[in-house]
């Protein structure tokens, strides 16, 4: 289950390493250990960020058939990534402190 906003954050982080298209991002998230990401969550997240100007989309010509839509992190996106990842780390630290001592 994706907490809204966390998926966004992970996508921004992945795109910081370079541009990618939808399916590629889904695969990478799966490799990171998130299990298979439903397309129904993935694309709306990408679209949200695109609308906010954190991502820029570019169609690239494909070999035979329509092209692929690649997403690229913009400068605004970079800023958002920095701010949101800092917020996440602070949050995670708080959760870890609260759980300290709880038997797994």
């Amino acid at each position, binding site marked *: 289950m994706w907490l809204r906003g966390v998926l966004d954050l992970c996508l921004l982080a992945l795109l910081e390493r370079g541009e990618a298209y939808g399916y590629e991002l889904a695969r990478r998230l799966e490799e990171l250990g998130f299990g298979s990401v*439903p*397309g129904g969550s993935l*694309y*709306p997240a990408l679209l949200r960020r695109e609308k*906010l100007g954190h991502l820029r989309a570019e*169609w690239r*010509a494909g070999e035979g058939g329509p092209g692929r*839509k690649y997403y690229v992190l913009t400068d605004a996106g970079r800023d958002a990534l920095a701010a949101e990842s800092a917020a996440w780390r602070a949050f995670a630290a708080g959760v870890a402190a609260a759980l300290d001592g709880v038997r797994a």
Partner: protein
Amino acid sequence: MRARTWLDELAHELTARGVPHAQVAGIVVETEAHLHEAAGDPLDTFGAPATYAGAVADALAADRVATAPGRVRVRARGLGKRHGRRAVLDGFDLDLRAGEAVLLMGANGRGKSTLLRILAGLDAPDRGKVEIDGSVGYAPQHGGLIDHLLPAEHFVLFGRPRGLDRRAAVQQGRRLAEQLGWDALAAPVAGALSGGTRQKLNVVLAALGEPDVLLLDEPYQGLDLESVQRFWDLLWDWRDAGRCALVASHAHDAIERADAVVEL
């Protein structure tokens, strides 16, 4: 559920939620590509078409900061122009604002090119006046290119008066061309390009240096569907960035893609 059926339903649901026609096309293409690679049941990967469409529509509505149309960039009042005995323009008025992509419609020979030329400053109207606030980029329907020069050389030449140095001009030109699906650096001289590619070059040259106003005359005549989509994606990006554009076209699919339509 079969992918084709699912996709058709998706398209239907998206349209029903008011997603612009051309964006629907883009979303369907992207989703289809994903399904092709994921090779599973769309209902598992995306859920029901209606649900997915809802999520997408929400995402698109988010932060469409209704850019209240900005300041007026182009103002034309009472333009009149005759060609021979025919009045091509008769008391034409126009206001074009920043953040708008407007379609100029009219059958061939009705004066679209003439109007664009007047706005660009290449033709003088018989009467009336034009005021422009900002820099202008213009792409003619025919010609306007130098046959013996490479596209990259065009970039340098057109980029210079806009303050772009050689490297920046070539880079910007290359990127714009790429967004239109064309590799500008591998292309031959302008005279050897196909009609559709010449138009792409024309559009790139008009947009080079990021002018405030774009005047495009039949920019995608002769382009395939994918290129048309790319063109509009690019235009919407520019529009969102605060530029205004006037696109002359007699293609009917453009009506749904523009913010407003002006008829001659």
